[in-house]
């Protein structure tokens, strides 16, 4: 076919060309500047505007930050030191630091929330970092009870008795495995419930009488500041996980009743603002519980926040389930695993892993939303800022408190969101 060819085309390169440096217009600051800052009139305008904005911000806030005062016990003192100049009075943070962090938690017991926080990281480390040995998961299972005991104190038998209920449930799962899963499921749910309702209380009393192992108890109304935000956020997410899983499964169920109950619940919760649920916790929950029941506000808030988070969690987990190929369900079926075993051994471990980044995002959202508890009189950081500003010493202070609170939230949320992004990237390459 090449016979129609006009001229010879043969060419062979004898020596390869070495790479050369690009022309000078292609490298260095000049090119970088031209390409990134001054490429075309629009870009030049944008650059100038941005520089002006940055300049303006620095001019406006620079002196204020530059004149920061750290050692002052009241605003008046600050004003005296500043002597008319504009400047930040960070003395308020120093003065109220323990309060903003721990609220009214007894100062001699600060080590307890701190330990609880450190142990929390240990407990979730196997989930977050694949290199952590799997054995740590046992600690993760113990942590909720340990954490509760560290934070609230009191007799150690309370958490132990509650934990026993779970052990009981697990034992029943093992024991009733050969019966119909339906019967055993009912059994496994009902027996521990009965235990918690009727046996656990007397058991705790009995055990405390025998071996009074107790630490100083701290009622939750003494919690405040970031401690309260963290407690509400973390327990909301942790408790909402199992409920969210059930709701997600319910929403996928082919039984209409269960499906619609789940859908209605999820859509209801997602359709109303969190603040109305918080008001429900503070104003209405007592209407719905038997007359005379009365437990403290933070606990009620945790209940409502858990319900709130579980609706969002359900959607997150539904996303994780949807990402699983059908083949996984079929393979489990074909091996003879029943629904619950398949869920527990095959589906959930994978779906949850896929969902971790979204769970982290949900947590960030929830953590930010905990600031709304200020509306029902819980002294979270914002609430404490208001209370601080109501004291004679600090009446009139403003920016410093909110900048500080905002910065702490930022550090928390930003690092978590970065972590979840890196996790997402890792999962993308991990998963087949």
């Amino acid at each position: 076919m090449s016979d129609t060819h006009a001229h010879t085309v043969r060419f062979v390169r004898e020596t390869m060309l070495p790479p050369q440096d690009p022309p000078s217009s292609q490298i260095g600051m000049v090119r970088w500047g031209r390409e990134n800052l001054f490429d075309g009139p629009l870009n030049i305008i944008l650059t100038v505007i941005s520089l002006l904005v940055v300049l303006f911000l620095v001019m406006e806030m620079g002196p204020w930050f530059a004149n920061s005062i750290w050692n002052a016990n009241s605003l008046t003192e600050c004003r005296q030191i500043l002597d008319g100049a504009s400047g930040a009075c960070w003395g308020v943070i120093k003065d109220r630091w323990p309060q903003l962090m721990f609220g009214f938690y007894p100062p001699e017991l600060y080590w307890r929330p701190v330990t609880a926080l450190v142990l929390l990281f240990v407990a979730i480390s196997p989930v977050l970092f694949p290199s952590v040995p799997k054995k740590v998961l046992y600690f993760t299972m113990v942590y909720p009870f340990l954490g509760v005991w560290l934070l609230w104190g009191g007799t150690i038998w309370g958490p132990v008795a509650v934990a026993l209920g779970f052990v009981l449930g697990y034992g029943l799962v093992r024991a009733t495995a050969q019966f119909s899963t339906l019967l055993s499921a009912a059994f496994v749910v009902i027996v521990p419930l009965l235990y918690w309702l009727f046996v656990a209380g007397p058991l705790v009393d009995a055990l405390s009488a025998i071996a009074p192992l107790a630490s100083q108890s701290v009622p939750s109304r003494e919690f405040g500041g970031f401690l309260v935000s963290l407690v509400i956020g973390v327990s909301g997410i942790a408790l909402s996980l199992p409920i969210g899983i059930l709701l997600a499964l319910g929403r996928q169920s082919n039984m209409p009743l269960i499906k619609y109950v789940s859908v209605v619940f999820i859509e209801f919760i997602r359709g109303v603002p969190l603040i109305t649920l918080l008001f429900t916790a503070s104003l209405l929950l007592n209407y719905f519980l038997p007359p005379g029941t009365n437990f403290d506000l933070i606990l009620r808030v945790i209940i409502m926040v858990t319900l709130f988070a579980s609706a969002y969690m359900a959607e997150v987990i539904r996303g994780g389930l949807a990402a699983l190929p059908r083949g996984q369900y079929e393979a489990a079926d074909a091996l003879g695993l029943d629904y619950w075993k398949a869920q527990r051994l095959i589906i959930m471990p994978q779906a949850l892993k896929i969902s971790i980044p979204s769970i982290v995002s949900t947590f960030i959202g929830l953590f930010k939303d905990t600031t709304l508890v200020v509306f029902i009189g819980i002294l979270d950081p914002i609430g404490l800022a208001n209370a601080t500003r109501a004291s004679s010493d600090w009446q009139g202070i403003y920016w410093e408190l909110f900048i500080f609170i905002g910065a702490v939230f930022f550090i928390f949320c930003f690092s978590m969101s970065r972590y979840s992004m890196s996790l997402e990237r890792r999962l993308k390459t991990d998963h087949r």
Partner: protein
Amino acid sequence: MQVSDEVAIQITNMNKWYGSFHVLRDIDLTVNRGERIVIAGPSGSGKSTLIRCINRLEEHQAGQIIVDGTELSSDLKNIDKVRSEVGMVFQHFNLFPHLTILENLTLAPIWVRKTPKREAEETAMYFLEKVKIPEQALKYPGQLSGGQQQRVAIARSLCMKPRIMLFDEPTSALDPEMIKEVLDTMIQLAEEGMTMLCVTHEMGFAQAVANRVIFMDQGQIVEQNEPYEFFNNPQSERTKLFLSQILGH
């Protein structure tokens, strides 16, 4: 390779619909113990559906399927019984990516058969050796090649000591180099007398080990014959057309 007279699977007059679409029409099929059957047919002819009905991954709406003496009905106990007797290998392996190979293999024996863990692991290693990859036991599926994964999938089914094995195009998702290693494993299995139903387009395999080739089209069994006759002397027009297509290219 002996075929006994005992019936392993008995399908009578079975029909299945997806919505109003009639996928399987009046299927009658008897498989004896030790038989090795290859099912072929154009895409969409219902081969996968048929095979999936046999362990109730799909529900049939009319007719009877009796596997190893147990009738498949809506009774869960029967379904469980059948499923633990029948192993299945899928086109896309469907290994569990979050478990090691060994855990993949011991999962069902431990949780369904209640085998002690130690014993389950021994069985698992035995079958891994049989499919010639014992050294991969502690890796994760994602670290294996497609052919190795499919062999693990076969071993996983075998660990449940099934009396019947179903294969749904086990080699069609594999690169050509890997097809052979999987087929070798299957041939070995066939030689040991396992009852097998296999949907495949590997005609070499069919000729080598099948007792019978079944040709399906439009949800019905169109032709059934011994491999040699089937390939060299097809009766129906459709079969001829089909054979010319797959052998031609």
